[in-house]
């Protein structure tokens, strides 16, 4: 799936990923390939993206995530 992390200032991340872990309002959750369409609120915490053997992590202070057609867009 494709992942994009956007801030109003810049794009923090854009690329493919296998797993993305997000800090949800009610605890953290993961999104895998072919997830159903979803819009979720994010709390303060860490967003980590796993792609193959690589893992990247970003801290966010809340935000939103939209999942649609295997594309994940995180707005922070």
């Amino acid at each position, binding site marked *: 799936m494709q992942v*994009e992390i*956007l*801030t*109003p*200032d*810049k*794009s923090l991340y854009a690329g493919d990923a296998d797993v993305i872990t997000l800090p*949800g*309002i*009610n605890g953290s*959750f993961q999104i895998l390939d072919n997830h*159903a*369409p*979803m*819009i*979720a*609120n994010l709390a303060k915490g860490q967003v980590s993206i796993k792609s193959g053997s690589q893992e990247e992590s970003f801290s966010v202070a*809340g935000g*939103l995530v*939209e999942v*649609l057609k295997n594309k994940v*867009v995180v*707005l922070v």
Partner: protein
Amino acid sequence: MSNQKEIRARIASTISTQQITKAMKLVSATKLKKASDAIIRMRPYARKLQGIMGNLQDSVDDPSLSVYFQNRDVKKVLFVVISSDRGLCGGFNANVIKRTRTLLEDKYPEQNKAGNVTLLCIGKKAAEYFRKTGVKIDERFIGLFQHLNAETAFEAGDYVLDAYRRGEYDQVELIYNEFKNAATQILSNEVILPITSVATGTHQHNDYIFEPGKIAILQDLVPRSIKTQIYRGMLDSLASEHGARMISMDKATENAGDMLRSLRLAYNQARQAAITREISEIVGGAAALEG
């Protein structure tokens, strides 16, 4: 002779002025590039926000959000006036000031008379002007352009939202120069609070799962989109400012060139007149000796 000297001095000073305006133009061109890049970088973010907002449109009549949508009796108004910190950018600031005055006089005359309009000035120039008039101004974010980024802009946005929610203001109006291209700015004013229409446009309805729920998402989304709107206004204004300065400095450089041309012509004429005079004096003197 003294005329020649005077013209020479003027030529020298015009040349140095021209060098300054040329340098300012180049600096503005670089800054314009940076500022317009920032606008382009925030576009995907704004577009996505709008898209999500469109998908949630039908749920916005929820009472806990109504504060942002409700049309209250407009007694107290906040203007967010975005000008620049520096001058020498043509009519840029004058236009903002003029529009603000027009709004005060034509759109909100009663509130203005009652002293219920506050100007939240971002950028020094508008504040400098309105300080001399009787209007209330709020200068807490005046120096925002010194380090403008999403964080500082959102801080200002949070302040506006809080003040509106607490009922300190019933309506918020944003006045700024919208960036079209380097040569064109469109002066805009829009009511940002209460929200009059939710972003429409092309969006498909998808069957989303909402986590934790539509309302919770809207509670985050609505303020976020207003803050984004304010931030966009600031970025637009910044890019417009550099564009306006670039154009006006280009004009100034050109004018200096024209002036130099006519000064050089005058200088040469004066020089030739002096030579002619000297020759005729010599010839006249020689003729007197012969005679």
